[in-house]
């Protein structure tokens, strides 16, 4: 057992190592770089070269990579040059993480509260108007480019009807106290309820834009799964026994149909970071996606590395934990 865990750990470390190496070499073999982004047209070639030298960007790649590894071991993942100049790339990750988590949680909540009931009723009235309508809606939801939807939402809700703010995370003049950097939670903790409410208003539009794809997928799975369960023998038995509809719905149909839905939700969480790049750009929402987009245009290597590696690390860790859990439960896995 111990040997199995060790082997898996070793593999995970190896995957991260290879990924960091690839990423590092790839980024730095590109033309241009952070110095161009910082100085633009305002510097002579000599000054430009001198700055590259000072920042250690003109050393041979292996030297640069070893220095990166050496720093990384000491907990230093480089300094941002574009997204937030001078900030440690890793601290920047932690600064931006709460915004993206908050946005993703809201998006998932919106997707769940709309998709599950809709999926359930669509299945109950299979082939009906509601069913067809919502199936078409979910398919269109997947087909609309997220950023376009974002612009349209803003156009109507912020500009035409002036209901919700178009950009940002919180109004600056609220001068809210920061505790955890989850703004909604912070407002509750410090009893600055207006700050929470303001943060929620800023979350609604980007969360809707981000929720479309998870909504469509969860809806389809719920619908298919409820359809499956409705055809199962035990539901027919329950109906035959004369159990009340409420009991059948609660105890049999919903509970059994939810299993595949729950696993799908897990699947969608990973996709949210991708959607966040687009959504956060459109709504100027200061999360990881926004940082990533800025990091690309300013060639902010350290921030790019940290963000991509952390995204991959998240997946690797979850994977590892699940595999370990399997190994504990199922002894056959260990021998494989």
């Amino acid at each position, binding site marked *: 057992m111990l040997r199995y865990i060790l082997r898996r750990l070793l*593999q995970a470390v190896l*995957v991260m190592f*290879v*990924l960091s190496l690839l990423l590092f070499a*790839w*980024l730095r073999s*590109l*033309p*241009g770089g952070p110095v161009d982004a910082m100085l633009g047209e305002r510097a002579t070639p000599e000054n430009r070269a001198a700055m590259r030298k000072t920042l250690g960007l003109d050393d041979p790649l292996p030297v640069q990579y070893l220095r990166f590894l050496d720093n990384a071991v000491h907990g230093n993942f480089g300094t941002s040059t574009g997204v937030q100049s001078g900030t440690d790339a890793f601290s920047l990750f932690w600064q931006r993480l709460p915004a993206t988590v908050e946005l993703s949680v809201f998006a998932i909540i919106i997707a769940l509260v709309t998709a599950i009931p809709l999926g359930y009723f669509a299945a109950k009235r299979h082939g009906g108007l509601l069913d067809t309508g919502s199936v078409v809606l979910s*398919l*269109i939801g*997947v*087909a*609309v*480019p*997220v*950023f*376009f939807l974002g*612009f349209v939402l803003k*156009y109507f809700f912020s500009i035409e009807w002036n209901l919700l703010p178009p950009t940002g995370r919180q109004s600056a003049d609220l001068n809210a106290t920061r505790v955890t950097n989850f703004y909604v939670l912070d407002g509750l903790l410090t009893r600055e309820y207006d700050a929470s409410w303001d943060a929620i208003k800023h979350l609604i539009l980007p969360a809707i834009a981000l929720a479309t794809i998870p909504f469509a997928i969860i809806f389809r799975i719920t619908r298919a799964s409820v359809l499956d369960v409705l055809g199962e023998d035990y539901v027919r038995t329950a109906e035959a026994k004369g159990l009340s509809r409420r009991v059948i719905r609660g105890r049999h149909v919903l509970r059994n149909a939810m299993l595949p839905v*729950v*696993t*799908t939700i*897990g*699947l*969608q*969480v*990973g*996709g949210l*970071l*991708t*959607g966040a*790049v*687009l959504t956060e*750009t459109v709504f100027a929402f200061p999360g990881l996606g926004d940082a*990533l*987009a800025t990091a*690309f*245009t300013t060639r902010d290597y350290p921030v790019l590395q940290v963000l*991509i590696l952390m*995204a*991959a690390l998240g*997946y*690797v860790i*979850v*994977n590892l*934990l*699940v595999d370990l859990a399997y190994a504990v439960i199922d002894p056959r896995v260990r021998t494989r």
Partner: protein
Amino acid sequence: MNPMQRKKDRIDKLAEQAAGASADVPDAGKVADTGGVSLIASAWRRLRRNPVFLVGLAVTVLFVLIAIFAPLLAPHNGQTGYLLNQVTPNDPVPGGQDGFPLGADGQTGRDLLSRLILGSRQTLIVGVCATLAGLAGGVVLGTLAGAFGGWVDTVVMRLVDVMLSLPSLLLAISVATLFGRPSQWTLIVAISVVQVPIFARLLRGSMLAQRASDHVLAARALGVKRGPITFRHMLPNSLGPVLVQATLVLATSIIDAAALSFLGLGNPDDSSPEWGQMLGKAQDYFDVAPRLAFWPAACIVVVAFGFTLMGESLREALDPKTRR
């Protein structure tokens, strides 16, 4: 449960369906067609009467026809600035008029309608090329892993896992950035890289399932070499789910192309228009002339919708479970 595991499971399941189904079409000579229907035929029989499939098929066929005959259908060419003399700082986007029902595109005075029609071709090329490239990469990796097994399998699948471990658009964005000099081809490669691990896993799963199946065992017993077995028996029998997946991927490719263009990572050269690029570049004119964004967006939605309808109904038709 672990999202990635689910992603893998979903792909594997699709692969198994196909392998299971392929057992229905062994060497046709041995099992006489006594009422037993081939998978394709039975699928087609059901599809023919499925309105969802027919709508999807109609949209797709129409799109492909427009793309093929685009130069004949377009009233003007897509590059000449016909309305350039009307472009002024106060009216950067001339509106609809005689001969130009949708008006001009951007500040260049080109005909928007013609560019939309011509754009269908480039959109189809990007979608098809990205899918084919993803498929090719997937076939190579998947066949290697599935046919050889052993350490080849382990190495290839670790690589595939690393690729699957990155969120898909993130991977595409990274690849697009990594090229340094963006063009139509870098865009295609960026989108297709995302599809490679999906196709690879799909093929490998379905080939693994077949390795133990009767027709492969029979062929091996008859002394057929590994190469012919792989290419004559295993690969053709795995293509069903791959084609379904390809249909769905075509739709996402077109949407991803738009997203990359929006982020400024698409093809900067707009002499041959493409819908995603048109939509991405229209963001500058969102307030002045929303139609510049609306029309390409509408086209993308309709076409992606068509492909998705077709792909989903194909998937259902090929699923042995729904054949009850």
